[in-house]
């Protein structure tokens, strides 16, 4: 019987939640890396027991962890003790160094600010090789490892897309989304707060902004080529040219790989939000969680509601069964929603209040897996045979 493994990154450690295919009874393991901030964990689609984790701290910086047994044990690739004093370690999994002279980006006040590595926001393992993994980092850049996260190399051409004009979003200048086209290994989409969305069609040698059609009223030129605060991108593997976006305000879609975006916010009660996900088996079924506003980062009207569109956007329905419908003031962060690929698709999300919810039936009914974790930063799901 199939099972699921939910990887939860929180402000104070990682948790692994497991269940069988019914998704009714759950085992909770953790905290792993207690006291450390776990921005993101994700398993390799090729080898589900290979899991990567971004562990960080304002005090001690970035650490990369890797498991080869489904999260039972972890190691820092290249951080193993060396056999003799003075011998050099074989790798440096937390060494993220920008290519060449990093230069400056724009600070909040419009002045130049040196590019400084702060943390890994997102890890995206390759769909074809468990040793290849991409990292989206703050200050915004994309790195690639070909040796299982032991060493990292920047794909620097991304920052040549007017990187000196990129400005941080409220949460920092983070590259938070990496979508690997499952049908074309050379195509990658990324999104950066608050620079916008970008695409490469040659494996990262060159990039182009893909922000036409976005309108952002909070920047001097609402139609600018760069500078949009994209919160999240999502696609269905069967149609990689169709990409959905939660923009700062507005939910958007493109049917031509980002050449033009159209607004699909439709009847949402508010179109501000962070995560967006696509149903595992229905490419036109998408999910968002509207948040009241960028000034009040909690759900609208004190009600925790997931909104589902079965029409690829514009027409939305509120999913509320099993979710608190009064006195709820949590947020759902951009990496904190995921789907499994069981027959009735499971939808999962974690909140800033420490709850992790699951719907085992496409969003119709919800229950809480765990109530009282630290602030949830990320949720990923592995569907296991």
């Amino acid at each position: 019987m199939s099972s699921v493994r939910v990887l939860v990154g929180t402000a104070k450690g990682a948790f692994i939640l497991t269940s069988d295919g019914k998704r009714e009874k759950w085992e909770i393991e953790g905290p792993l890396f207690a006291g450390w901030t776990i921005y993101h964990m994700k398993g390799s689609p090729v080898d589900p027991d290979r899991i990567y984790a971004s562990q960080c701290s304002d005090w001690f910086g970035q650490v990369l962890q890797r498991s080869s047994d489904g999260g039972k044990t972890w190691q820092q690739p290249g951080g193993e003790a060396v056999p003799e004093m003075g011998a050099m370690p074989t790798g440096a999994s937390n060494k993220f160094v920008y290519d060449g002279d990093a230069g400056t980006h724009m600070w909040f006040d419009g002045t130049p600010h040196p590019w400084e590595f702060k943390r890994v926001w997102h890890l995206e393992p390759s769909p074809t090789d468990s040793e290849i993994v991409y990292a989206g980092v703050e200050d915004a850049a994309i790195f690639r490892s070909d040796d299982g996260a032991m060493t990292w190399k920047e794909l620097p051409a991304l920052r040549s897309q007017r990187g000196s004009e990129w400005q941080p979003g409220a949460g920092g200048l983070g590259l938070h989304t990496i979508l690997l086209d499952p049908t074309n290994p050379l195509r990658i989409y990324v999104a950066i707060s608050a620079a916008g969305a970008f695409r490469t069609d040659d494996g990262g040698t060159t990039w182009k902004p893909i922000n036409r059609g976005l309108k952002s009223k909070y920047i001097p030129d609402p139609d600018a080529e760069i500078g949009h605060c994209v919160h999240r991108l999502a696609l269905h593997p069967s149609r990689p040219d169709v990409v959905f976006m939660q923009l700062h305000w507005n939910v958007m879609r493109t049917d031509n790989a980002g050449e033009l975006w159209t607004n699909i916010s439709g009847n949402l009660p508010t179109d501000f939000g962070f995560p967006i996900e696509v149903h595992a088996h229905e490419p036109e079924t998408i999910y968002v969680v509207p948040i009241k506003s960028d000034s009040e980062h909690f759900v609208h009207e004190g009600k925790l509601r997931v909104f589902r569109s079965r029409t690829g956007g514009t027409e939305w329905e509120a999913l509320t069964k099993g979710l608190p419908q009064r006195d709820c003031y949590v947020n759902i962060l951009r990496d904190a929603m995921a789907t499994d690929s069981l027959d009735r698709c499971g939808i999962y999300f974690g909140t800033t209040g420490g709850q992790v919810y699951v719907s085992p039936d496409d969003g119709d009914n919800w229950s809480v897996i765990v109530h009282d974790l630290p602030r949830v930063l990320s949720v990923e799901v592995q569907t296991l045979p």
Partner: protein
Amino acid sequence: MNRHAIRVVLPYHLQTLAKIGSEVVVEFDGPATTESVLDAVESSYPMLRGTIRDYVTKKRRPLLRFFACGKDISHEQPDTLLPDALLSRNEPFIIWGAVAGG
């Protein structure tokens, strides 16, 4: 060349990362300086590389402090000689996280 053995106290999060207790002893040759102590710590515990000092610049991470004999030596030059009490192992070299309360 002198060989030194220095006691080093590490903050909790680095203890868990390196899977060690609160205090370790590191050995090295040459002058006993902050730089040589940190080189020895990173050599003995490679998983701590980048967590105390920046990989490239070797500068102390901003929210860490170094103490010796009750004195904050965070802002001293990395090649400043450490007090004799550390060489005799009566006192440890202490690495602490700044702003620890709250």
